[in-house]
């Protein structure tokens, strides 16, 4: 590993674009939807919310649906602990998000779009509504029949799960649906729906503007482009950074660590914890650890038991509660590590709990439960003594 490599900071997302958004959309309207979609496919852009589904393919699937009613939804329910980049994007370059939605709408044939903004970001709402109103008017003048509306969440992490988000928009409890069917065929109000993360939509807009080749200059074969990272924890420079994908954790820590980094939690509570010994060999990206951008650094003063305990408490509260593995599984993982710590259960019980985490991974209804094994196994395996003593 080239440990002397400097982290490549990128400036695509927040850069003041040469062309304004409406003129980019105007240009788009002169092309065939499928050509725009193919551009996105060609760019290799994958969803920036965490799951990493190929964006172009998602658009194509919705495009192919035979329905007069379709929807574009911007997932701005950024709830993953340690993530705050969508807030910044919506604050600084909201026009690009809206433009990304409009382009998607044109491609798939949607007339209505929603931004589902988490309730915690209410302070953005008024300003955003004004911008949206303005933008909707402009779309009318250039002849694109598409209208965006802002919706607010009400404090439920699971609503970031796409089908839970639909339920919430529909005025229901945010309980994820069974998949299949997938949103591109049966989504919001049971209509074909493209739901993309805020950042993904901005990249889709940028790729449409500057072309896939510019985007592909960054990143690796499996992880094209750059990504906005939310950096927090034990770091001298917490904040939001757009970085090229494909770096090693070691490179990352060199840049952002405080010199005493013992672990990096990649992808928030539902992501994996990388211990110091694996820094050099772990790549941040789809070939290694994919992430929605949350990077939490922990130095040697931190108890990893506390970290895991905090994560598990979070999941116990934020699980929607409908499926057994997730609802009860997280309670058992939490009570389980407490029992081991207190000596009420033997250290070997951690092995039972790891098996349970694997069950949760394969049998839960949605990503919330399926993520259990990520933090649990990576923290328990790498910091076992901290769990026991």
């Amino acid at each position, binding site marked *: 590993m080239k440990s002397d490599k400097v982290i490549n900071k990128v400036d695509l997302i927040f850069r003041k674009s040469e062309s304004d958004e409406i003129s980019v959309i105007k240009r788009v309207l002169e092309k065939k939807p499928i050509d725009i979609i193919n551009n996105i496919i060609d760019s290799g852009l994958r969803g920036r919310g965490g799951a990493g589904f190929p964006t172009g393919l998602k658009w194509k699937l919705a495009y192919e649906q035979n329905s007069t009613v379709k929807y574009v939804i911007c997932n701005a329910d950024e709830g993953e602990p340690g993530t705050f980049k969508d807030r910044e994007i919506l604050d600084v370059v909201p026009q690009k998000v809206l433009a990304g939605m409009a382009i998607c709408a044109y491609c798939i044939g949607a007339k209505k779009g929603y931004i589902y903004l988490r309730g915690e970001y209410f302070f953005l709402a008024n300003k955003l509504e004004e911008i949206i109103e303005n933008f909707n008017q402009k779309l009318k003048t250039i002849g694109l029949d598409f209208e965006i509306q802002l919706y607010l969440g009400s404090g439920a992490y699971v609503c970031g799960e796409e089908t839970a988000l639909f339920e919430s928009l529909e005025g229901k409890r945010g309980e994820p649906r069974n998949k299949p069917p997938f949103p591109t065929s049966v989504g919001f109000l049971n209509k074909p729906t493209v739901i993309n993360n805020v950042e993904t939509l901005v990249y889709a807009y940028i790729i449409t503007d500057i072309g896939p080749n510019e985007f592909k200059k960054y990143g690796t074969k499996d992880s094209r482009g750059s990504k906005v990272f939310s950096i927090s924890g034990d770091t001298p420079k917490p904040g939001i950074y757009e970085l090229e994908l494909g770096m090693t954790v070691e490179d990352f820590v060199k840049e952002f660590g405080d010199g005493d980094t013992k672990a990096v939690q990649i992808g928030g509570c539902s992501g994996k914890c990388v211990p110091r010994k694996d820094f050099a060999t772990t790549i941040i990206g789809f070939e290694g650890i994919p992430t929605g951008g949350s990077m939490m650094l922990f130095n040697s003063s931190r108890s990893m038991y506390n970290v895991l305990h905090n994560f598990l408490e979070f999941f116990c509260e934020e699980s929607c509660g409908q499926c057994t*593995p997730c609802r009860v599984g997280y309670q058992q993982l939490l009570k389980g590590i407490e029992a081991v710590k207190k000596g009420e259960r033997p250290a070997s019980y951690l092995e039972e709990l790891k098996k349970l985490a694997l069950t949760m991974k394969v049998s839960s209804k949605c990503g919330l439960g399926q993520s259990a094994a990520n933090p649990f196994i990576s923290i328990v395996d790498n910091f076992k003594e901290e769990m026991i003593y």
Partner: protein
Amino acid sequence: MIKEVKLKINNIEVCVPEGSTILQAAKKLNIELPTLCYHNDLSVAGNCRVCIVEVKNSRLLQPACVFPVSEGIEVFTNSNLVRQARKHIIELLLSEHNADCTECYRNNNCELQRLAYEYGVSQHLFIDLIPLKNYEKDYSSPSIIKDDSRCIRCQRCVRTCEELQAVSALTVAYRGEHMKISTFFENPMFEIVCTNCGQCVLHCPTGALIERTYIDEVWEAINDPDKHVVVQTAPAVRVALGELFGYEPGERVTGKMVTALKLLGFDSVLDTNFSADLTIIEESNELLERLKKAIKEKQKAYLPMFTSCSPGWIKFAEHMYPELLPHLSTCKSPQQMFGALVKTYYAKKIGIDPKKIVSVSIMPCTAKKFEANRPEMKSSGYRDVDYVLTTRELALMIKQAGINFSKLSETNYDNIMGKSTGAGVIFGVTGGVAEAALRTAYEIITGKEIPFPKLNIIPVRGLEGVREVTIKIDGTLPEWDFLEGMELRVAIAHGLANAKRLIEKILSGQVNYHFVEIMACPGGCLGGGGQPIPVNTEIRKSRVKAIYEEDENMPLRKSHENPDVIALYNEFLHKPLGHKSHELLHVTYTPRKRY
């Protein structure tokens, strides 16, 4: 043409129609997959996850109840991964669940208990979470007990209340570790918009929702030498009780049931069918009075007239459609007519102080418990019906008494109010009250039998949610000549969700009828909330068949030919809708809050 899809389950090939689930495909191969949140009567939730299976090339296990098959998939239902996950899931459910099975009403008939046994999860792998939960037990309702400590959060009750009954008295509240099945603001069951129909009880896989039992009170009365204990049995009980003694659904056990009741020590074993016949006399006369008022006298009459036998429906109407209450027949239900007569007519006839009579009824219904407790139901001067037991409770009493049910001989009901006709027994099935009423009303109007072969009014029968029939009236007697040539329009709905659909159409003026029969439970009383568990469409169909067999086998098929009813009028009531009838057999209801 529906496309067939070929797939493999455990390496065995199977073809099923496109759109089928893995569960359905497995069933075709006679592979029974464990399920908890799945129920045939309800939409699919896929939330308990015990039916998970391995689908080749899928990184996740998939819930068989909801996962659609596709061409060429390979499914494994017993792989180690599946078995481990399933065992974990059952253990997880048990860690939240009060598993004092011996104290549970559903002991030996609990879906979770069965799975725990099958998967050998008797040891407690995980930490007992019950001490951390503030589980509550709600005893407020005379019909239904809700015990959160037994709940596995499968949401079958919630879907039942919404999809079958359109009530939504139960909901899923909170989320995560605090998620629970709740009423509005966790108010007591007695105070909420609950119809007491008990469909939630019928669809609960465990003992989280059960009927309130009165078995001990009944034993006490039986064993009290000062008490004269009379029991009546509803029509639908006899076609379902057998299921609790190993009989196939649809086997009629009327005679054995009567014998068993006598062996239990009831002083008199009588038949609700008798008062069903009586109801028909009163109700068909009431309908004709209303028609007369509307058509002949051109006055305002509340039409359509709705039946009033189903207490779940009554409470539903009180909450949801108070404006319809004047449309309800003022006839009490057969149970309550019976109760009012037991402590008046019957008491006088056998010369017993009504104070000493304990009136018990065996019902397929949990709402009947509430009905018996209504303040309106004291016209005899006493509580007309003292205790209501469900079919399930009766079976339990028979078991407690050590009676070998299948070996019993068959006996007949006792005298005075024990005789009945086929028209009485079909009260137990959707469409039955309408059919019985038509058999009698038509004859009152025309003096002739209703013109259907063997008196079977086939068009009113069936399990369609909403049905309608038009009967043309031909050859009226002079008194009823204003009805000559008229088409009597009758509608029937069962299951309150269907009832709601029908009522909305009536209220919007899209349709109009003279007579509407509503039964709260799917299939009518035979699918009632007090009937044996489990229930599904097949079982209901078997019970339907049995009820109609019972009808056809009766020597008398028309309520007005019931000799005990005729005697009752001669000796006591004098005439339908007369003074005494009004005093004892009729009632009106009052609106309740909608939300």
